[in-house]
């Protein structure tokens, strides 16, 4: 399963009433609070075995499943290089 699909599944699992696709801005939908943001970061770190550094904790990296998937790809690529 792709990282994008896993991220979408996680978001849909938490907010089953919302219809979300991979390019939809989840902040614009209005249900991201600090609790969900924390859960989202923990999910990404646990699922993909990465640590998201402070400088990557920017809103643009978390707006869409596409953006989060790209972040995961960058971080796992960094791991491979290291």
């Amino acid at each position: 399963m792709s990282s994008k699909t896993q991220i979408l599944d996680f978001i849909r699992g938490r907010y089953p009433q919302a219809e979300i696709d991979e390019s939809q801005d989840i902040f614009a939908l209005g249900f991201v609070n600090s609790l969900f943001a924390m859960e989202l970061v923990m999910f990404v770190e646990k699922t993909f075995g990465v640590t998201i550094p402070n400088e990557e904790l920017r809103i643009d990296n978390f707006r869409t499943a596409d953006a989060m998937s790209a972040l995961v790809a960058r971080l796992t690529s960094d791991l491979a290089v290291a």
Partner: protein
Amino acid sequence: MTLTSTAPAPAGAAPVTGRSSARAFVDTHVVPYADAYDSSGRVPEDLLRRAAEAGLWDPLSMDMVTLGEVHEEVGRGCSSLRSLLTVHTMVSWTLRRWGTDAQRDRWSAPLAAGDALGAFCLSEPGAGSDAAGITTTATQTGDGWVIDGVKTWTTGGQRADVFLVFARTATSIGAFLVPRDTPGVTVTPIDDMLGTRASMLATITFDGVALGPDALLGPSGFTAGMVLTGTLDLGRYSVAAGSLGIVQACLEASAGYAARREVGGRPLAELPLIQAKLSDMVTDARAARLLVAEAGRLKDAGESATIMATWVAKYFASTAAARHASEAVQIHGASGCAPGSPVARFYRDAKVMEIIEGSNEVQRITIAGQAERETTR
């Protein structure tokens, strides 16, 4: 940072590495003196040193399940000491999770050794569980930050060396490390609280406190709220464990008293109404222990489900503590209301657990919100 500037620490505090060593430490160094701490309104330097000897100020040296067990045992002996450990643990964890290398280099070692104690500054005169209502500001300047505002109910504030201060920035809420000796910081003790009377609470005033650019802990912008969420989650976990410790303490005190005290020639323990109270204590202690352990296991696994598991554990354990502390006083009768009565202290401390790190009302809103989401799947 006064711990290392005094006489050599007394011998006798063996390292605490888990439940059994924590229990031994608490039974030797805490339980016999906890009522005296409560009366005097402070945990003495001697005990802070012994805790340092035992490694209690280095909570990150153990996994979260073990940390929960240790904080339960400390809470069984003295909620004030456990409260000091809670806020220190919150600062230590936040530094490790979100700190820069420079921030860790400066604070990690002294915090772990107990040479510096940390405290957590969120509540204000006009904002408690409503964290979004804080008015303390952090204004970015050309060469750093300036903090202005008043924090109150700060556990350990009278004694802490570094404050983790949450303040409103231009875009969100940020976390700032503020050394106690920074000009503009004023500490005003709060005495005679209902419970956790020895936890050295204070009101902290920040009046034009100028800090360097490295004072900000963690990300700025939208994710800054996560620092607060994560810090409070750990505090809630520690309070859940400490509340469980109160239930266990109530059980042990009540079972002992009921076995010794006779009514009409029979021990209290033979009365069905007393047996009912004791059996409820046993049951709730076991249930709370499972909830705390599950929250800890999820933390150790890095599972996001730990946040809700911790809410549930704290809600259950704190309400159980308040209920059973009341029953423990009831079982002890007038002697439970007497000066220096441990169960009277448990009763007063337990009430505090229903308020701190998110009041029970806020907990119910959050837990119910999760249930609502789940039932719409």
